[in-house]
């Protein structure tokens, strides 16, 4: 099986190790991995802010870059949803966009639903994890159990978290258009954080926002993308 990895611009720049982890993990599971080099951003920030013309240009380019791919796998629920759910809206009448959307998966979703892998190893034995459900992964892609199953089966203790499914306040441009509200949301979310050793999520944007906020308020907690933890689960 062959997948094309779409690392997404935020992970490329800020969580490069998540990409490395994803490649190692997929290869270890016997999957061939491509990284189509022309890739940049899926266009979501523009789309969400209403700039559809800009978003459309980027959607077309993503379609071109990933034309050949059998599966497109992303370590980001939000971008995966952009490709899966919003490309067909953005390019109405495009068969290509429609067919493409069905080949797109967030990493944990791909592992569980396509590869049928629920157990990666026991590399997270005893690690106390707080899992933040990225909103688009959760509500647009329906990725709820997959990350939890993979983490728990690797020995991690996924801690109950009152606000686990609450939006962190990132929201792309939202975080700079309405910075005060965005920060208040992060603070509310973090005020309920359980005593974890690591905070994780599928989305680089959420993690960037939350970790920045924690650093600013002097909280010292490891923040790692889900892909990184899944590789640790496998590699021990």
């Amino acid at each position: 099986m062959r997948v094309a990895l779409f690392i997404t611009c935020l992970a490329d720049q800020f969580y490069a190790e998540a990409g490395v982890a994803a490649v190692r993990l997929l290869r270890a599971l016997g999957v061939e991995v491509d990284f189509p080099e022309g890739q940049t951003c899926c266009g979501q920030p523009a789309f969400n802010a209403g700039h559809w013309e800009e978003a459309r240009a980027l959607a077309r380019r993503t379609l071109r870059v990933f034309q050949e791919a059998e599966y497109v796998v992303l370590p980001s629920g939000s971008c995966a949803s952009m490709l899966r759910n919003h490309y067909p809206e953005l390019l109405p009448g495009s068969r290509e966009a429609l067919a493409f959307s069905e080949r797109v998966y967030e990493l944990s979703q791909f592992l569980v639903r396509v590869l049928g892998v629920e157990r990666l190893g026991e590399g997270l034995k005893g690690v106390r994890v707080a899992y933040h459900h990225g909103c688009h992964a959760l509500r647009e892609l329906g990725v709820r159990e997959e990350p939890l199953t993979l983490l728990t089966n690797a020995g991690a203790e996924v801690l109950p978290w009152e606000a686990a499914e609450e939006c962190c306040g990132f929201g792309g441009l939202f975080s700079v258009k309405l910075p005060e509200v965005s920060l208040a949301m992060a603070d509310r979310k973090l005020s309920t954080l359980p005593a974890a050793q690591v905070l994780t999520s599928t989305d680089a944007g959420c993690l960037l926002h939350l970790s920045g906020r924690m650093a600013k308020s002097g909280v010292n907690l490891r923040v790692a993308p889900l892909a990184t933890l899944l590789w640790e689960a496998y590699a021990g």
Partner: protein
Amino acid sequence: MRAKARFYPKEAARLLKERPGVREAVTGATLHFERNRLRAYAEVPIEEWRERAKAIKDHVLSHLDRYLEEAERRLLEKGARVHWAEGPEEAHQVLLEIVRRRGVRRAVKAKSMLTEELGVNPFLESLGVEVFETDLGEYLIQLLKEPPSHIVGPAIHLSLEEIRRLFHERFGTPLEASPEALAGVARKVLREAFLTADLGISGANFLVAETGTLALMENEGNIRLSTSLPRVHVAFVGLEKLLPRLSDLALFLPLTARAATGQRLSTYVSLLGGPAKEGEEGPEEVHVVLVDHGRTALLADPEAWETLRCLRCGACLNACPVYRQTGGHPYGYVYSGPIGAVLDPGLLSLEEAYPLPYASTLCGACLEACPVKIPIPRLLLTWRHRAVAEGLTPGWEKTAMAAFRKVMESPALYRLFSKALRGLPLPQDLLPLLRAWTEGRGALRPSPKPFHELWREMEEDRGRQN
């Protein structure tokens, strides 16, 4: 009500800074409502209920002319008077005529968002009529001269402390008075008002076309009194409130209650027809004012008409993490939270409500909560798209988007940008954006190398190994 929606970003920031207690009160109350809703939804086949409710509403909205005529006919048969109001002026005319003819000096009002739209209170007051809001929350904010902060819980932003202080100043109650004692004081004032008012004003949750029945839901009993004690009753009903058959109430009453407060049914449901008949107790005159105020225009909007399914249950507000930080005031119009963000541009104009569709992270919690499945996230996107098309976007955003597109369309530029992020100065255009980010979250700390470089290194390693 005069809209101040365009000040949303400033007002939200100001409120967070100046009244932090609001955030605490609203978060607490909405989380409580939200937990109740989830429990109440889980008790029933909620997906079927939502699907059916949506279908019935869509049906009635697509045959609205027919159902409105039917409702009017039935209401007239019952002896009610029916008025049509396109906007506030015509609605005020109805009140003016009644106030003059019946010499009205006091009015008691049951909670209604539509009367906020129409500015009923200030109009009546301008005629010298004393108006009493009779819902406890509404009464509190009337004393404070504040607009409602939530569709269902208008005083949701107030803490018990603030209410105690208010009553202490107004009625001389002790500063540590219990909520029961405070309610007792309000009850005394309002009882007197109920017994002496000449006019009762209400909205309606539903108007059943088949029977001309107004349905009103509440928990305090004040609606019941407002609509039955005064000799004249005026109900303001938005055109979208129609239901085809009486039996539809069997779905809509419990669905609305579950969505709003997690109750199986509200404590009181009043079903009203016309005025009292010979020998019956009740108002002598009943007026039903069917109000448009932007609704037919919205109905004709192929992308935004679905907002008219709204039951005003407030579930989307309770579920919304953005609303939770500020309550409803910064939104600057009658409807706040997720539904306000998509309804207000339709009722006011996008220009006037420009910032509201951006008051969301598109997290989708509102859609999950909505009992009639209004696709709020999609509608937010639609309004944003229109805002861009109409040129309402601020300059910095346009510049940033143009730069973003340029960089992302070209892998070469993207790689250059990625280098810039790790040392070189960033383009000036992006600085305000960056500042808005770093102020609350510290400097951006990119990975030492971007993944696309690490990928090359990995590939080279593999090449060497093979």
